[in-house]
């Protein structure tokens, strides 16, 4: 237990800080969930790439810097300290990227990782279907082998940023006779392939942050399959582990929210309820606890360990923390909470954040499902029913 940064780590922090201070947009970007905001965020991805900050932990050969997870955490802390925008390519860099790193062929790594790190190709995740949400093994969209292509037919939904993104990664049933977890295959596809129709879906806030995808005999080359045919479920579970366990939500995001909440509380202290004061302190404490835990997980992985079912604890914790921090802010704002813009014209980021925080306990595997996993895999309680 050595909780001090080395001089090299401090120097790295200073380097990130200087770059972020010089480059992070002074005004918040328009929300990532609409076309205008998406374009601004992609522009930002390219700016990041120009400083070679796209994905610092990846090997240099794939557009990264070959840094370790502690450096990644320092990078993230400084990113959020500077008010860095949401990552347009988060499903690519945080989910698909590590998955390709683990399961991809050398050829696939070369082809997909560098453009991902550089923000040249933006990725959407296409797993959920109308009939397969929490119960992902109920996936029915088919990819039938025809020579050196798969022919995909079916429907995906809730695919974040799919209305604007370039490529998608999905899970399809390649064995039409198969049931449940078997016979599924992980396939990457160009969203502009003929036969794909995208139907944007308006989200709670009114913007089209996700989309439905319709596949009508879409031909995708066999070399776009990741890991082997029929391996889709195992690959997807590994991706979900990255998503929940470490990468998707780094602590800086919540620490900066907690800090803003402290500042908001100070402004509203006179009229704030005593319970709000405690909620603000809880926010700081929980965000710190989350950070310590992430440092512990990072150290474990650096020493060759793996993230198991405890990724579910992580996902439950950050999503419920995010929601409660924003709920507290909404309470502090009182009658201003409902305003989309404040009197000075600035966007009500707390409102936007509160709305988004309501999706945290749903996406990346609902918190009910995470509690099932915790009870069954970590505590060893009996599994009954759905399998």
């Amino acid at each position, binding site marked *: 237990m050595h909780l001090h940064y080395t001089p090299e780590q401090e120097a790295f922090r200073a380097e990130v800080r200087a770059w972020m201070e010089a480059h992070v947009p002074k005004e918040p970007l328009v929300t990532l969930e609409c076309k205008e905001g998406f374009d601004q965020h992609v522009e930002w991805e390219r700016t990041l790439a120009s400083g070679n900050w796209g994905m610092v932990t990846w090997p240099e050969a794939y557009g990264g810097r070959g840094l370790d997870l502690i450096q990644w955490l320092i990078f993230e802390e400084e990113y959020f300290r500077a008010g860095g925008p949401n990552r347009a390519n988060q499903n690519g860099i945080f989910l698909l990227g590590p998955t390709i790193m683990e399961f991809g062929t050398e050829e696939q790594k070369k082809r997909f990782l560098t453009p991902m790190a550089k923000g040249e190709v933006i990725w959407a995740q296409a797993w959920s279907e109308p009939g397969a949400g929490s119960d992902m093994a109920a996936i029915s969209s088919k990819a039938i082998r025809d020579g050196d292509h798969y022919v995909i037919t079916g429907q995906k939904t809730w695919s974040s940023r799919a209305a604007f993104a370039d490529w998608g990664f999905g899970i399809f049933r390649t064995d039409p006779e198969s049931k449940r977890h078997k016979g599924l295959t992980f396939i990457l596809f160009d969203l502009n392939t003929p036969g794909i129709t995208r139907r944007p879906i308006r989200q709670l806030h009114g913007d089209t942050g996700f989309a439905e995808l319709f596949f009508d005999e879409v031909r995708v080359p066999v070399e776009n399959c990741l890991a082997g045919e029929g391996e889709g479920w195992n690959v997807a579970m590994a991706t979900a582990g990255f998503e929940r366990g470490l990468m998707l939500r780094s602590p800086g995001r919540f620490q900066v929210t907690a*800090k803003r909440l402290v500042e908001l509380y100070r402004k509203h202290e006179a009229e704030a309820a005593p319970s709000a004061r405690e909620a603000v302190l809880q926010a700081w404490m929980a965000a*710190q*606890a989350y950070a310590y835990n992430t440092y512990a997980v990072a150290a474990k992985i650096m020493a060759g360990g793996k993230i198991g079912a405890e990724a579910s604890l992580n996902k439950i*914790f950050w999503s419920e923390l995010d929601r409660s921090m924003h709920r507290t802010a909404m309470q502090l704002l009182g009658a201003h909470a409902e305003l989309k813009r404040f009197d000075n014209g600035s966007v009500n980021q707390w409102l936007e954040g509160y709305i988004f925080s309501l999706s945290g306990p749903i996406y990346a595997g609902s918190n009910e499902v995470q*509690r099932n996993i915790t009870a069954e895999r970590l*505590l060893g309680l009996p599994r009954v029913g759905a399998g």
Partner: protein
Amino acid sequence: MDFRFTEDQLTLTESVRDYLAGTHGPEVLRRLDAATEQGNAPRDPAIWQGLVDMGLTALLVPEEHGGLGLGLVDAALIAAECGRACLAEPLVDTAFVGVPWLLAQGKSDQLAAIAAGEVKLPLPHAINPWTADGEGAAVQSVDPLRVLTQGSGPDDPHLLNLGALMSTAQLVGLADAMLAQATEYAKIRTQFGQPIGAFQAIKHQLASCAVAIEFAKPVVWRAAAAMQDGIASAPIHVSHAKVAATDAAMQTAETAIQVHGAMGYTYEVDLHFWMKRSWALAGAWGSRAFHLKRVDEAVLSGTLEIGPQSTFA
């Protein structure tokens, strides 16, 4: 930067855990409790001697005084094991709170005797309205295995922080043990033709305890490291740990009794020992309110640097 325990720390912790699991099970707690019915103190020289033989009283005593010279992080790990086993002997107070407190004052005359297990140190402090394992007239705790005596002491800030830190470590160990007991019970008790642990209402409550414990522990370890390194903000991290560990233990205690049904409300089922120790340690060495106020003063008045760049401030 390395938020991990060393191999040595993990090995030591495991050996203490195994030792206590083997020699200090619930039947021992019941036996000690029965002794109080005969008017005897719930203490057993043989248990104490076992801890001394394990080297635990010598853990923090410097090598020149016959000790092992280990640090507060090691001690916190062992204190958590003491909580897990619901150990009642005053090991944590004497060896993990008293010894570093004496060392901080440069007092070394008692160290060799403590290491040898010949001295147990009562630690009167103004924050507590009683002294544990002290000399005065008895006061009764809800925890039948605690020996409390009348008499408070001076208001020493370092002693308070050490006492609070070690209570947080015991609390996460207690919480672990209560979660394990409730989980085991949920696997064997059947109703409606299935183990109650197959009901989601039970699963989800236990899972929520697992979340609370998982995220209280790193706060405790961080506080221990901060105290060991003597950083200026250490008291705030101790207070943070006290709130987090108290909340995790209280939530787990309430969940554990609920999962046990009426069984949990009896004196027969051992769970009550762990619950009562949790209540006691939740209040000892500064209540939740006391510690929350210290966090409040640091975070809201701006004396502590906060934000993503200040994780380890």
